[in-house]
């Protein structure tokens, strides 16, 4: 009898250990999935100053409880915040970063659609403020009137048609970015390449409307920040970049973004 009790105790404790080990492995793999990657080499700009902290994401900071908020007060911004549950995919079309990011962004909020359908539902225009410029399969790096991409307005309009409260904004402040992220709302932003700088140009379309365009326009999704850096996702991979590097790149096209406007 004594032997039998010992035996069952042994079996039970082994089973508990195995179960605990499985839980640890699962948690670890979930954490790795969202880990930032090493900096990609930006080959198209000789002035790349991109440095990066290839670390695992810090744990999500718990916002400090604030004083009783008044209806007009903005939520306090925590020192750091990382959205953990967002995932992405590699863009299908050479100029399809806007549609690709839109698919990932919408999926985070529970809305699913195909990149192909989103891309083809965008209006076409010779002005990116009004529609997609050129063919989505064209070479990257050109500016209008050659194939280019699309800016935030038409993207937000189309996301709204899919039922999402998307809002296009420009000159969005860094604090507002952090505030959005801290509310677990990823942001689609218009940057240059993989967070570099290129020369912005004033472009006038056939109807005389002007807009700012720049070579290697690219769209990524911001997913977190700390006091020194911003985390973004592009083609399904995560990167951390110093905040000033991000601001320089984002500033080229006027700090343009699509936010979740609750």
């Amino acid at each position, binding site marked *: 009898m004594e032997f039998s009790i010992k035996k069952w105790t042994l079996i039970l404790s082994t089973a508990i250990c195995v179960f605990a080990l499985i839980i640890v492995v699962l948690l670890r793999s979930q954490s790795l999935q969202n880990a930032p990657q090493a900096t990609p080499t930006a080959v198209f700009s000789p002035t790349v100053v991109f440095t990066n902290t290839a670390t695992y994401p810090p744990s999500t900071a718990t916002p400090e409880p604030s004083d009783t908020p008044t209806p007009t007060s903005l939520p306090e911004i925590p020192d750091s915040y990382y959205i953990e549950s967002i995932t992405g995919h*590699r863009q*299908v*079309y050479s100029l399809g970063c806007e549609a690709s990011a839109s698919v990932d962004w919408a999926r985070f909020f529970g809305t699913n659609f*195909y*990149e*192909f*359908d989103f*891309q*083809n*539902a*965008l*209006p*076409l*225009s*010779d002005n990116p403020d009004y*529609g997609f*410029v*050129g*063919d*989505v*399969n064209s070479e990257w790096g050109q500016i209008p*009137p*050659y*194939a280019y991409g699309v800016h935030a307005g038409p993207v937000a309009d189309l996301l709204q048609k899919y039922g999402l409260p998307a809002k296009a904004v420009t000159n969005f402040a860094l604090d507002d970015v952090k505030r959005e992220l801290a509310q677990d709302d990823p942001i689609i932003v218009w940057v240059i390449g993989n967070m570099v700088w290129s020369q912005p140009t004033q472009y006038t379309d*056939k109807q005389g409307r002007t807009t700012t365009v720049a070579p290697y326009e690219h769209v990524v999704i911001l997913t977190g920040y700390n006091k020194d850096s911003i985390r973004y996702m592009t083609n399904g991979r995560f990167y951390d970049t110093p905040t000033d590097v991000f601001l320089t790149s984002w500033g080229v096209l006027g700090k343009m973004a699509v936010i979740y406007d609750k």
Partner: protein
Amino acid sequence: MRSSIQALSIGIYARESLTNGSEGKVMGLTSKGVFLLFGQRSIFITYSDHDSPFTIVLPPESLSSTEIAAGDVIYYSQNDLLIPSRELALHLQDIPVWEPSLPLPSINSGAERIRNSRQLVDHLFTAYPEKGWGFLHHPDQQDGPDQQQIRQFTRVFTRAFQERDLPACLEAADHIIGLGSGLTPSGDDWLTGYLLFHIRQIQANNQRPNDFINELGEGLVRKAYQKTTWVSANRMEASLKGWSEALFLDIIDHLFRSSLVDLSTHLSVLYNYGHSSGVDTLMGIVTACNVELQSNNKS
């Protein structure tokens, strides 16, 4: 290869787009088939047996949508389309190549052509609600701002066309190319229909394309490859050879010879062709037919 499918037929434009050893990719999947891209040329794989220069026709339900995905790399080699990542091969050897036949000589007068074109559009919009650029059929309709703009652009284009003013035509086309959304925006479909009518007419009259049409067509195609989707640019490019879906060629031939027996079937297919591509292409054809008669009356 894990699975292989024998294709049933291929269109002439698709055949020309495939050269041995070329690499392409799957652009996207729709409910009606799969778009491939080779260089700047798009090919549509479908089960539908409507004759088209742009398609590869497969046996019904032979390709599951789970077997293929947007972004898949595809190779053309030795008469096979190969998707190595899916271990899938589409065999194209010894299959019929569909090429549009040349039209019979035109026998209808200008007035008869106009009558046929009006009859077609009237039938269409009696049976189905108006969509796309169908509103152009009503010259005196009260338009919304977008419609007013489209009407203005097309008027400027057709006026320049009547005057054989190439720079003005291309300038006007700048506003029309890429106007709309989708794989083939409405403006492109309208221009493709417009060009197709003229090329088919030249073929029906057994004439050589005149310099104006040649230069206009080439100018429009050049602009299309810069400004709009390549699917649209491909259709416009093909129209310069008189290549298009049999549906649209039958309709143009009907204007020339009153040849359509089953009007309702044609109009049903046309109405459901794309989002509004069928209607928009028809409006381009009808506009070209009207402008042609006005030009003849003037001269």
